[in-house]
């Protein structure tokens, strides 16, 4: 270590810049995924089919031009679905569930745990690296498809783009945190897949395919109290119909859910790791 002697030798002391290692994990995932960026385009076809069906579906539902359903014009409604589907296709939330469940069941977690990082943050960082490549590609596809097939989005405020981006990032992170919490139950139960399925379907029906306003008025406050509001509905609603008040409301809810989700995640992990049983070898 001759050349580095004049510098502060950090070896074996740890945590001088705790976030640097997560930045490096992020960069490594990005480097890995950039090699396979072309593979992402394989999913474009499914996205196209899905959106095409919804364009036709909402075309039948809206009989007259300018008609409003639950406060949305036809264009807004289609753009809403395009945005939520962009978040789902572009983020691959199943990555978290797949990786964590696989690590716990396959015993790989044992080899990841004895590294000087927090396993849950390692997974979240990897997930962020995953969607950092996919999401921009799906965003471009959605923008092109929407403009060509539906027409420009009238409620979109380009100046508010940074706020929207923050909400999207927070929404994806909250989704990953909750999926991680469910996956961590694999420490106790053999397979957490049924719980993941339930969570995914709730997000799909309540937040992705239809905005919250579609549901009965009595249900809406309840739905707005679930993480669905912060994961899909909130960010998509801001893209389709931005207002500063709505943005603050979504951000506040996201902060609350993120704090609660993180607390829950750390708690489950701490308890679960003591239950770890690593199979053979």
């Amino acid at each position: 270590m001759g050349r580095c002697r004049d510098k502060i030798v950090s070896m074996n002391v740890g945590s001088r810049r705790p976030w640097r290692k997560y930045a490096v994990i992020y960069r490594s995932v990005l480097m890995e995924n950039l090699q396979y960026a072309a593979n992402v385009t394989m999913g474009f076809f499914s996205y196209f089919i899905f959106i095409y069906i919804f364009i036709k579906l909402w075309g039948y539902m809206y009989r007259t031009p300018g008609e409003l359903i639950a406060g949305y014009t036809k264009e807004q409604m289609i753009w809403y679905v395009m945005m939520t589907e962009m978040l789902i296709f572009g983020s691959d939330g199943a990555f978290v569930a797949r990786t964590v469940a696989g690590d716990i069941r396959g015993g790989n977690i044992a080899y990841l745990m004895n590294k000087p990082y927090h396993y849950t943050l390692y997974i979240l960082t990897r997930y962020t690296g995953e969607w950092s490549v996919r999401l921009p590609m799906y965003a471009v596809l959605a923008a092109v498809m929407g403009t060509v097939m539906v027409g420009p989005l009238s409620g979109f405020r380009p100046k508010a783009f940074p706020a929207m981006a923050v909400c999207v990032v927070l929404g994806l992170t909250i989704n990953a945190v909750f999926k991680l919490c469910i996956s961590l139950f694999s420490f106790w139960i053999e397979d957490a897949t049924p719980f993941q399925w339930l969570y995914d379907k709730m997000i799909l029906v309540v937040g992705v395919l239809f905005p919250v306003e579609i549901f009965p008025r009595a249900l809406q406050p309840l739905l707005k109290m679930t993480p669905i509001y912060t994961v899909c509905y909130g960010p998509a609603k801001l893209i389709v119909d931005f207002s500063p008040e709505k943005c603050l409301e979504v951000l506040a809810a996201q902060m609350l859910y993120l704090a609660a989700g993180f607390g829950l995640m750390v708690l489950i992990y701490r308890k679960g790791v003591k239950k770890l049983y690593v199979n053979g070898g």
Partner: protein
Amino acid sequence: MGNTRGCMEQRVLFFYANKVKPFESAYSIKGEERTVMQAITVENLSKTFRVKRKEKGMRGSIKAIIHPHTEEIRAVKGVTFTVEEGEMLAFIGPNGAGKSTTIKMLTGILYPDGGRVEVLGIDPTKKRKQLAYQIGTVFGQKEQLWTHLTPNDNFRFFGAIYDLSECETEERIEELSERFALKDFIDTPVRNLSLGQRIRCEIVASLIHKPKVLFLDEPTIGLDPVVKENVRELIKQMNREEHTTIFLTSHDVGDIEKLCRRIIIVNDGQIVLDDSVERLKRHYQDKRALEEIIVDIYRSEGDG
């Protein structure tokens, strides 16, 4: 006749195993005054797992849903030993003997049910992360490298994970790639490397932060004899030059003979022998190969 011989052997082994004190350093260099520091201290370590049991067939599967039946498996039963700093120890045993469970408790992955563990003065159950900076692990059957990245990128990654500055990482990569002869393939993605090249990279990745204790779990598994020899030589060299404590688990007797001077044999969660390889060989003068001796010990303990 064979049975009588087996019983005799078993009695001899029992006697022999109980005569050897676990902390006795049978190979200490005479006349050399040196303070021996303990790298690893294990006292009465035990671990029990609850394992699901199911009767055979569909009926058994349905029954298991209604009345799940679990059984306690005592994987480690009151194991006690110490390892000196800079020592190369072989910790071996048949499959299911409890050696991997012990390693996992030493590295803080599993929580013991009883007893005490200290690695470099750190309790792994309480300060796993702190300990992680001081130890390295190589599991021959598991990959820790990112397969789509090159070894060079992987080493930089591990350098950052262990909080090394870029300058420190660069120097360490240079030093280790020279020593482990990685120059020819350091910029080739790991997925394109041969097993021997990959294992060398795995070892380098686990050495990047200059660990004081290195846990090697079957590091030469699947390698051809030439590469095995090469890897062993590199481990020896590293122990000599960096005074790294080596805790080796292997089913390959060659690894044990070439690398370690002390051997601990575990069976059924207990230590059945703790001695120097040399004395073990001397004790069994009638048997030539260490492998035969080890197989005999496994068998006699299994019968017992």
